[in-house]
């Protein structure tokens, strides 16, 4: 009996906590006349579907595409560079590797809004601002690479060393053993971490706002900020925009929820 009570209480906590997300979806479905009624309604009496209209009016295809380009680019760079480092840090225990790990952990904590100033000036001097999305990918990769390394390192630590040693005895090179034994065995960890990095970069704001000046290269976060403006009243449209933007993120999260949670908890405290 007590267990059912606890379950119901847990559901209540979750419902209270996720109320802002409910409010976002609810507002998106309300017609604009119903949005500003006071007292507000908690269920749409005449649900509306303005999604296609908002998507077209606010040029969301352009914004979402730019966000996608930046998220894919960042994930590729982080995975290519980070996987090997995570492997080396998991396999070798030495003073040198401890120093590398220490430096990687220190690079993880730098707030992007504070790094934006020097990165903007530097990128401006070497001409990277001319390719703004690439500039954002480079900066964002440096931001997420430490997290990628730390999370993947725990996956590599779970693979027994003996499997690689057996492959080495059979004549495989280090590279061969790494690519054909270690990486496939750590596949799940690498994939989940990549998804996490992808989702984070898909919502990137600071670097996009600081480094991209052309309207048609800007990301969905910047588009949402422009939409919100200083004296906005079109909450209906803004919430519709938000719903279109975050629903795919939430679906991916739901599908991988258990793996993301366990990956995060294994890596975060070690």
């Amino acid at each position, binding site marked *: 009996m007590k267990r059912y009570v*606890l379950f119901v209480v847990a559901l209540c906590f979750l419902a209270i906590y996720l109320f*802002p997300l409910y409010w976002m979806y609810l507002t998106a479905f309300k017609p604009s006349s119903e949005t500003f009624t006071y007292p507000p309604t908690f269920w749409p009496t005449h649900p509306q579907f303005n999604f296609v209209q908002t998507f077209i009016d606010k040029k969301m295809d352009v914004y979402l595409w730019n966000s996608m380009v930046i998220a894919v680019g960042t994930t590729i760079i982080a995975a290519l560079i980070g996987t090997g480092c995570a492997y080396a840090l998991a396999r070798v225990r030495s003073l040198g590797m401890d120093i590398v790990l220490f430096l990687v*952990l220190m690079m993880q*904590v730098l707030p992007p809004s504070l790094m934006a100033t*020097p990165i903007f000036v530097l990128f401006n001097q070497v001409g990277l601002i001319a390719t703004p999305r690439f500039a954002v990918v480079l900066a964002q990769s440096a931001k997420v690479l430490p997290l990628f390394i730390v999370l993947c390192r725990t996956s590599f630590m779970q693979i027994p060393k003996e499997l690689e040693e057996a492959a080495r005895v059979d004549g495989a090179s280090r590279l061969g053993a790494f690519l054909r034994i270690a990486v496939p065995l750590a596949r799940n960890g690498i994939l989940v971490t990549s998804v996490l990095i992808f989702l984070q970069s898909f919502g990137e704001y600071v670097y996009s706002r600081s480094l991209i000046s052309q309207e048609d290269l800007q990301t969905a976060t910047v588009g949402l900020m422009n939409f919100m403006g200083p004296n906005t009243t079109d909450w209906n449209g803004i919430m519709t925009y938000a719903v279109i933007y975050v629903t795919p993120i939430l679906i991916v999260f739901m599908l991988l929820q258990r793996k*993301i949670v366990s990956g995060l908890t294994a890596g975060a405290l070690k």
Partner: protein
Amino acid sequence: MSSIFRSAHDGRGFDIALALLALAYLLVFSAFPLVYNILMSFQEVDMFSLASLSRPFVGLANYMTLFANPDFWPIMGNTALFVVLCITFQLLFGFGLALFFQQDFFGASYLRGFFLAAWIIPALVAGAVWKWIFAGDAGVLNYLLSSVGLIDQKIFWLSNPAISLYSVIIANIWLGIPFNMILLSVGLAGIPKDMYEAAALDGAGPWKRFFFMTLPMMRSTLGAVISLGIIFTLQQFDLFASLTQGGPANASNVAQYWSWQLSFQTYDIASGSAVSVLMLGFVIVVAFIYVRSTRHEYSA
């Protein structure tokens, strides 16, 4: 030369090459900007000298201007208040929920995971949703508070300078709860169950067990969560951008947003980098203490 190649191909050099590749990337795109930032904070940097490689050095002038700025100390005070309040409440709610979900019931770990839905969405979108919830006239928060009788007139959450900082704090606490809860759950799961059973047999009640067993056993986890909390709270930018933009009149401004505003909105890049250097120095000290302490535990 060939021995280096053979080592990279077959031996220890392979691991070193893999590690150095990532380290090199981080040195170029994180460490170098960091050092360059310190250099810039001693130079005269504006839109005209931006592209030139040699800029005049001005010594500590940028820092002097900054300290003399009447906004400096209020904004630093806001930053401290923001960090302290966010961490305190994130920790309290996170710990409470972690303890609750530690109990054995159907779907406990599954439901717990759903809290992370708030953590996974872009903070800027969360800011947009909260801005709508906080809206003065048609906002749902004012409606809920007045319908339970807590307030008699509408609160202007974002435009009242006495309240705007607290509104951002509320939204940031909401964002930070799931991460705190998950990390604390890991710590709780590490405490052996039979210890509690033994203590219960000896007559220790739930409060005693919490204060004399759970809290001491959680000391290192709490230390880690608080340090990570400081680091992540100082990374919060998107909520300020979407909710108040530091306003009204800097009433809700914090250092990490101000630094960005100085550089990218008033183009006072020298001051922006000076604020940035001060804050980065602080973050690095916190991170240093945190990483050192977790390393010690790891080897012990």
